């Protein structure tokens, strides 16, 4: 017996009949059962992260795929015609009959919030682009940056609170920890103040991913070279093994390229700052400054 989902049947809506705000509302409603932070979920907006407990909805990573599938179940699209890309059974979706929405592998890599999920649907042509809506959506790069800031702020607050309860040598050691955390927070606050410095920091991740991609390309070159050598030696078993190795490296190379695209986009996003992002950054900078002040460092 094939698997059958136990849930209320949802009537899917054509994405071209609703606007971005309505789509966002439905996406938030669709993930309710996965959200473990009820308060953050009930006040969620376009820029509330799905993951994380401090400012996020508290969805666990084990339900990440469920977020994407919940979006797929709720909407219909005209991008339903499969156009083959390459020889490995991969395809892209082009206009066709109205049908089930399908989010392909890797397309949801940056969809960390309801707003970014709506942007994903726009980027892949499932709904019309709405520049006014997108103005309000904080990029993936800034969602990560702000999320890290909140984590850092919580860590400092907790350390300060622990240190306050101590006396003597214990207090001195705990104070040293607070001092380090405050220095980290201060450095992060300064980094947030400078979009260029932030972009440079993200460029380092991109450079590391690029180096890894190049390393894997060299691995493929080596496999191709070995295959050429084995072909001339007429060793059928060896040739078959090397063909398998070559195919595996090509698959890995595609994944590496997908990873590189994500880090390239994050690096590019970190260099720009919209009004919505500026507001989020200002908010976390204020929080950090206040906690640093309270720490007495």
């Amino acid at each position, binding site marked *: *017996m*094939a*698997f*059958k*989902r136990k849930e209320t049947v949802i009537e899917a809506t054509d994405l071209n009949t609703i606007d971005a705000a309505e789509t966002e509302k439905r996406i938030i409603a669709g993930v309710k059962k*996965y959200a473990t932070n009820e308060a953050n979920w009930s006040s969620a907006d376009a820029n509330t992260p799905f993951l994380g*407990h401090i400012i996020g909805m508290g969805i*666990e*990573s*084990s*339900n990440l*795929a*469920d977020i*994407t*599938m919940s979006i797929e179940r709720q909407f219909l699209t005209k991008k339903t015609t499969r156009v083959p890309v390459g020889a490995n059974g991969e395809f892209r979706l082009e206009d066709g009959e109205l049908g089930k929405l399908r989010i392909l*592998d*890797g397309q*949801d*890599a*940056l969809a960390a919030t309801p707003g970014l999920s709506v942007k994903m649907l726009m980027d892949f042509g499932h709904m019309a682009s709405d520049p006014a809506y997108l103005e309000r959506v904080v990029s*993936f790069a800034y969602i990560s940056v702000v*999320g*890290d800031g909140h*984590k*850092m702020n919580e*860590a400092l607050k*907790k*350390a300060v609170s622990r240190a306050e309860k101590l006396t003597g040598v*214990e207090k001195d*050691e*705990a104070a*040293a*920890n*607070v001092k*380090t*955390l405050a220095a*980290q927070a201060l450095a992060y606050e300064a980094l947030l103040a400078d979009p260029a410095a932030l972009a440079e920091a993200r460029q380092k*991740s991109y450079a*590391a*991913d690029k*180096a*890894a*991609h190049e*390393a*894997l390309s*060299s*691995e493929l*070159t*080596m496999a191709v*070279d070995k295959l*050429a*050598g084995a072909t*001339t030696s007429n060793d059928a078993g060896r040739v078959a093994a090397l063909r398998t190795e070559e195919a595996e490296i090509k*698959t*890995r190379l595609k*994944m*590496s390229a*997908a*990873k590189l695209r*994500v880090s390239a986009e994050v690096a590019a996003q970190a260099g720009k700052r919209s009004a919505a992002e500026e507001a989020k950054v200002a908010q976390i900078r204020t929080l950090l400054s206040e906690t640093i002040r309270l720490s007495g460092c």
Partner: protein
Amino acid sequence: MLSAAETAQLRRQALWSRLLAYPTYALIIAMGRLRFGYTFKDLERFRAELWAKLDAHPGPVIWAANHLTMIDSFLVFWAVFPMSRAGQANRLPWSTPEYRNYYAVGSPLKAAAVRTLMYLCRCIPFLREGEDEASVRWREAAFEKCALILKEGGSVFVYPEAGRARNGWLDSRKPKDFLGRLALATPGAKFLCVYLRGEGQTFATVAPRRGEAFRMHAELVDGVLPGETTPRAVSERLFTVLAGLQERWFAGSVLSKNCAGNDVVDLGAERHRENFDLESGEADTDWLTRHLSAKELSYFSSQLKGSRFRTFWMYFAAKEAAHKAFTQAGIMTPHGAFRMIEVDLFRRKALHRPTGAQADISFTDADDDKVHCLAVLRGGSVGDADQPGDVLWRVEEVPSGENPGDFARRRLLDFIAESADDIPSAALLAISEDDGLPRVLRRGKLQDWGVSLSHSGRYAAYSFMVS
């Protein structure tokens, strides 16, 4: 025994490589410096200290180094050997590269060029695979050639690990016997142990990235000590020396040495069951393919229907634990890209497919309610049924009303304090979240303890690693 023809062939190669030692050396340096932009830190000091020891030992030397890339032999040679000494024929090491990796590659022209270079670089092709008579004979002949070279006072370069370390970590608990055998066959030989690694080298690759700066440590130690009568005894000591050099290398590095992760999954949580029909063992195919690779799906499907639910969550916990271990090493995985990490439940390995980095995994605390997995990329061992590993962990139920993340953090610090004699109280520790990664602070300093936190439904889990 080597045949007369094999011995003559070896002597001919020795002659040609000696005659062309300077141009070959110049070619290697030019390629490394001009094409790849490689540099070495503190090279002059390193060579001066090392050669003071080598000059005091005129006898044979077995070079033994860690192995991360396909061009390590050139890099180690370049680091150790100044050009002024290229004329010292007995000091120029012979090496044993895998035949299939170097001798039958590319077009006939390319293959010929590579073979010529390998010939002049004193390479003795080696066949690591194959148990047929010809392969075994090939290996024996290579061993005999190495032994002959050493008996005549020469030098031989062998990788003790026998292959590139996919996790980027030399594991002293897995010694191989080849070097021990070689040392026992040539009692006067000493081991030149070298640990060389680029400052940004996080995993095994074909070649280090362009512009890489290398740092190295070396020791010259006795080949065989009194009382060592088996290859394993010699190799164990050699691996311990190399592991010590590795420790010294990481002590001077910005890279984290201890990279481990853990993950717990609450099997009772309703939201973990909605894609499964527990009675029939069926699962939503679309959902499965978003998490599992083709290989993993095949294994999943081969399981008895009653155990598929647990098998899936074992895969998931392993992927999450490995993801955390990889992240600590700077090897990132995009949001939700579960298929980028491929888990082999039988071999207990997790492969980061975009980079080829590989972590060891281990399942603990298994019962009907939960799955818990540990993963170690480097820094020590994840442990197995016979040997305990270097990771300490706990899985606990989260008290009602407590934030699971806060609970895991608090209990981790308690656990570390309980486990360490010199930390009287958890209050002396704090958790830093710099760069989004949890790390423990003590006396204001970040500790390289590979800490990891996890929570799922009713459970929280935490782990740390000290090696």
